[in-house]
């Protein structure tokens, strides 16, 4: 049709663009080479500043050039007056703004801006804050800008209140913003610190309370927020997750609000076996075996402890100390033992342990850095003895959420349940309810918890295994609690769909374990903690390997009927258990192997009662 506008064909356009690009590239490369050669010659002049500017405004992610630029600027600082330097750096800031327009997420640009801001003789922080403001209004999740902003705020001393309002505003415009929520979590404890009393509901450790309490509180509660403010935050975050329950940033913040207490540090259990001449100490958290020694007083033997063999990880709980032969073999004598646990963070306390009253001495010198607990043990005539901290009750597993008042937890549980009624499929809500229920009454809510886990696995099938493991963990915790109440040394958890076994450190004293009819795939290395274990039943699982059954001094009977053991090499570990006499492998693939009987007899000679 006539009258139509004639256009260049796309090939023509392409060709033109290509030429254009080539020309640009040529200019770029030649300036780059010029820059490099100037730097080689050590020239720190204006021209180099010009050249780098030209290159960096095209490509702000050229770290070498930023470095060169800093060299030049540092040099110019030495030869110019303060006013000139001020002007120089102000120009630099304007130039950086141009670079940020090219790439608002350029590492080099933001870093250089931070550097310039600190070099500026008279910094204009208001300008920097407004720049951040503009950047964040374009992309409120630009973490480079967040980082830079934090630096500016720190250097310019913006009041915390103002910063909190800033997060209010950003959250108000879009609450799917981890940076804002996280920033909030760092500001609130500064602005509304929680009082140590209110934040410390847990009992003091029963023993040696005099020295442990002052050391525990300051660290433990530094990140807590006062109750009144917490209630406001609950309201805010509830608004967020009721508005959009699928947004996880709000839920994560909520988890933070509900608290994640650091557990009281303590020695939860010490077990001494005269026969094995060994002391086993379990701690409330893994301790660094290589860094410190376990002191047994009054023997004052710095015995190098070791962790359980398999793990090369330096952190371990419990810790085993093999005593020098004959130390406690004298059955007529009473042996009193004390375990001192020092988490050393300095190297100046070596001499402190020589006195007879170790405990007092240490507390005076480095009260904060040192946590000591003393457990006197009496070993008179018996072959074994133990002492456990009776704190192994409810508190032990409650630490996931640690809101101070259970009334608060109760009302949070109510609002979550309300949300669940509206959104029965919401995984975050389900998970939070489970956690709240556990914090409130793990045994009382066991049935509901299991039901919620079932729903969770259905609605969030991608994380089935995670939920299974979590559920297993909770089931084991519940069983341990029940066991503690009954004060027995038998642990039985059958037919509960366990997918993993954990908290084995809590089972230090257990002699009988029954894990039959679960979904276990292995007996993990942590099984080696079960120093008192005599009988293990794990029938009807899918166990393939037994690496955890290592050096269990008292293990006599192992029943692994209907599992998935197929290789004889997996059974080799059993030879490290000296007392093992009965082994039941019926219903395993390995039972079909030829010569299995004789091979096993050779591999594990102690077994006299082998069922295949």
């Amino acid at each position, binding site marked *: 049709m006539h009258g139509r*506008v*004639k256009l*260049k064909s796309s090939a023509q356009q392409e060709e033109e663009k290509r030429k254009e690009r080539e020309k640009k590239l040529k200019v770029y490369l030649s300036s780059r080479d010029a820059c490099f050669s100037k730097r080689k010659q050590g020239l720190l002049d204006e021209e180099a500043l010009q050249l780098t500017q030209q290159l960096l405004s095209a490509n702000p992610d050229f770290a070498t050039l930023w470095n060169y630029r800093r060299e030049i600027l540092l040099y110019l600082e030495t030869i110019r007056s303060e006013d000139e330097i001020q002007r120089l750096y102000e120009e630099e800031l304007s130039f950086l703004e141009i670079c940020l327009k090219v790439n608002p997420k350029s590492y080099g640009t933001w870093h250089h801006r931070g550097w310039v801001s600190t070099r500026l003789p008279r910094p204009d922080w208001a300008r920097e804050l407004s720049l951040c403001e503009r950047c964040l209004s374009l992309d409120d999740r630009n973490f480079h800008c967040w980082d830079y902003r934090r630096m500016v705020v720190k250097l310019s001393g913006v009041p915390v209140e103002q910063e909190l309002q800033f997060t209010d505003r950003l959250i108000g*415009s879009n609450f799917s913003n981890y940076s804002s929520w996280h920033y909030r979590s760092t500001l609130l404890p500064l602005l509304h610190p929680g009082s140590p009393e209110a934040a410390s509901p847990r009992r003091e450790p029963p023993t040696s309370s005099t020295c442990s309490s002052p050391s525990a509180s300051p660290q433990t509660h530094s990140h807590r927020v006062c109750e009144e403010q917490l209630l406001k935050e609950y309201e805010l975050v509830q*608004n967020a997750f*009721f508005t959009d329950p699928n947004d996880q940033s709000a839920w994560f913040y909520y988890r933070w609000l509900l608290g994640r207490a650091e557990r009281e540090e303590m020695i939860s259990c010490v077990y001494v076996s005269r026969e094995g001449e060994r002391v086993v100490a379990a701690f409330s958290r893994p301790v660094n075996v290589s860094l410190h020694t376990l002191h047994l007083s009054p023997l004052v033997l710095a015995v190098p402890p070791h962790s359980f063999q398999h793990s090369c990880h330096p952190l371990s709980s419990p810790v085993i100390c093999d005593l020098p032969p004959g130390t406690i073999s004298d059955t007529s004598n009473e042996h009193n033992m004390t375990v001192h646990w020092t988490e050393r963070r300095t190297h100046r306390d070596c001499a402190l342990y020589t006195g007879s009253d170790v405990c007092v001495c240490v507390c005076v010198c480095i009260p904060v850095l040192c946590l000591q607990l003393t457990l006197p043990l009496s070993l008179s005539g018996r072959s074994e003895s133990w002492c456990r901290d009776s704190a192994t009750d409810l508190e032990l597993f409650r630490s996931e959420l640690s809101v101070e008042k259970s009334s608060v937890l109760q009302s949070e549980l109510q609002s979550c349940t309300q949300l669940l009624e509206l*959104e029965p499929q919401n995984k975050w809500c389900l998970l939070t309810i489970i956690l709240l229920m556990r914090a409130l009454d793990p045994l009382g809510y066991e049935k509901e918890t299991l039901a919620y886990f079932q729903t969770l696995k259905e609605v969030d099938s991608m994380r089935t295994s995670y939920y299974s493991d979590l559920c297993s963990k909770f089931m084991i915790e519940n069983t341990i609690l029940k066991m503690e109440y009954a004060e027995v040394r038998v642990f039985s958890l059958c037919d509960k769909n366990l997918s993993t076994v954990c908290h084995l450190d809590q089972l230090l004293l257990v002699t009988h374990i029954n894990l039959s009819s679960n979904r276990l795939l292995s007996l993990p290395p942590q099984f080696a903690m079960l120093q008192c274990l005599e009988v293990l039943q794990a029938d009807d699982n899918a166990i393939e390997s037994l690496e955890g059954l290592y050096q269990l001094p008292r293990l006599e009977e192992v029943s692994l009927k209907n599992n998935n053991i197929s290789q004889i090499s997996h059974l080799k570990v059993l030879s490290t258990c000296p007392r093992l006499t009965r082994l039941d492998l019926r219903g395993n693939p390995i039972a079909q192997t030829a010569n299995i009987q004789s091979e096993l007899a050779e591999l594990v000679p102690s077994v006299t009662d082998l069922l295949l």
Partner: protein
Amino acid sequence: MAADNLPTEFDVVILGTGLSESVIAAACSRVGQRVLHVDRRTYYAGNWASFTFNGLLSWIEEYNQGCQSTVETVDWRDKVDSGEEILLLSTVDTSISNLEVFCYTSEEPEEEEEEKKGAAAPTSPQSPIEVSEGDKGNQATSPTDDQRCPEGETTSDTPREGQPEQQDEAESSGLAEEQQVQNGDGEEQSKEQPSSPAPMEAKKKISYAKIIKEGRRFNIDLVSKLMYSRGLLVDLLIKSNVSRYAEFKNVNRILTYRQGNVEQVPCSRADVFGSKQLTVVEKRMLMKFLTFCLDYEQYPEEYQDFTEQTFWEFLQSKMLTDNLQHFVLHSIAMVPPEARIKEGLRSTQHFLRSLGRYGNTPFLFPIYGLGEIPQCFCRMSAVFGGIYCLRHSVQCLVLDKETGRCKAVIDTCGQRISCSHFVVEDGYIRVEQRKGVEYRYISRAVLITDRSLLQSDLEQQISLVTVPPLEPGAPAVRVVELCSSTMTCMPGTYLVHLTCSSLGSALEDLGPVVSKLFSKPPGAGEEDAGGDERPAVLWAMYFNMRDSTGVERSSYELPSNVHVCSGPDALLGSDHAIRLAEEVFHQLAPGEDFCPPAPNPEDIIYDGDGGQGEGSGFGKPVPAEEDTAGGGIEEETAAKDKMEGSKKEETSGESSAEVCKVLHPSAPITEE
């Protein structure tokens, strides 16, 4: 080239510069059709136009004079051959009715800067003042002729600047005179009311003279619409690249009138999160319902069984609380309570899909008013060779007796112009050709107020306020409140548009809502009713506009190659006009792309030997005889300069008649 010397052959002749016609013009020019686009009015955009305050006064005056066409006609009889018959077009625009104007503001005596010597005021200043100072009780209900604004000698031209440089002397002097008029007006008023007590308010009251003086800061839309961020209009503006001719602002707030208060409607996620009026459960219910509406087609089980129900009943069945029902029904879906479920779901979805594209509400508003939009399309048409004539109309169509098709038109200069298609706005069609046609009407009110309906920290906010029927059977009213940063009103004022489908006259329909939402400013001697937080109305205008969108094409007795464009409808969006334009375009140019993006200037080949209208349009030295070919790049840049000039003017405060209105593609017909 003058209007009496147009080319005699076009592919399409388009009469009327409303939105649909302008889009058709742009689309046709874009694909290379020769387009003649004319309008008998002195301004662009017909009933879609925006006026400065003074321009509006002229428009009102025109209405009062009986809507006579100002265009002289020339005899055409000798242009018709045997075997042809003619079809006359209407010369009178009857689309506006029930126009009434009220002025509630008075003159401040100390307004000294207004005192300038000038010509006698043609805009009868006494009338508005009489009203405001006189019988207060009757104000709202006594619309009499003398309250209507001004009569005077500025009638020959509007202050809108459609054809500035090319104006002949008489017209330019008209403009100049008008400027004087404003000054004179102020002076005279201040003389008349020297004793008017200065209001004791902290904020200075704005006088009528002040409004007149700052009249150029106003851009008052005849039809009040917003643009859905994902509506057809916005999509078309983007697709065609026409958007670069205009600037837009986000509507900031969606408000509603509920239980005697104006309150914010939580519609976006951030609104719902931040809302203080909703409980957390309500928040969840609302979000859940809105999320469902967003993809309601995917959950037919949710509403299939309720197809006989109304949307409102459906909302009730969804257990939404009363205030949530109100928000969804009136402010989000914006459907009447009796609307069917699907209609409600569809419009809720439309609203929601537009959310968040440009901001926290679904709507955009063009800076300088809605009247910009048709002009932007005209400009695109001109860039691609369309020829524009204002104050120029078509007297009649020449029909071929045998085929019944329209062969040509005869313009108001008596020139016969042949064309293959003729596009015409409904208002130009004579009663004889639309006998069975039933029109609907839109009730409109335009208010100038002194403060926002819902004051907040941010002064410059554009708000949409939905007012549900005050009583059963009454119309739901839509209120758009514009702040001065939209360049539609002077600083310190708000421009408020009220719109509803007519039941009665505009005043009957909208008066009750106005009196609920606004107060009348206290007049002389009256105490300011303290505590009245409602904005005061300074000036008000009511009128009804014909809504021709409901008319079937088959209701018109017209040849098949005559295409009728309806005027604006009462809805908030402009989808109807765009859809119509696209339909008509596909009939005119079957198989052609509708408004493809304009090419980059650097991709255009200039040295080709293309025909007329091509080369001239794109910056090549224009041969004298091709001067008719409308706007080109050169003109475009000129217009751009003008636009920038006008912006400078906005900030510097230096008023200049020439740059007040921009974005006009040149009207080549007035060039000599």
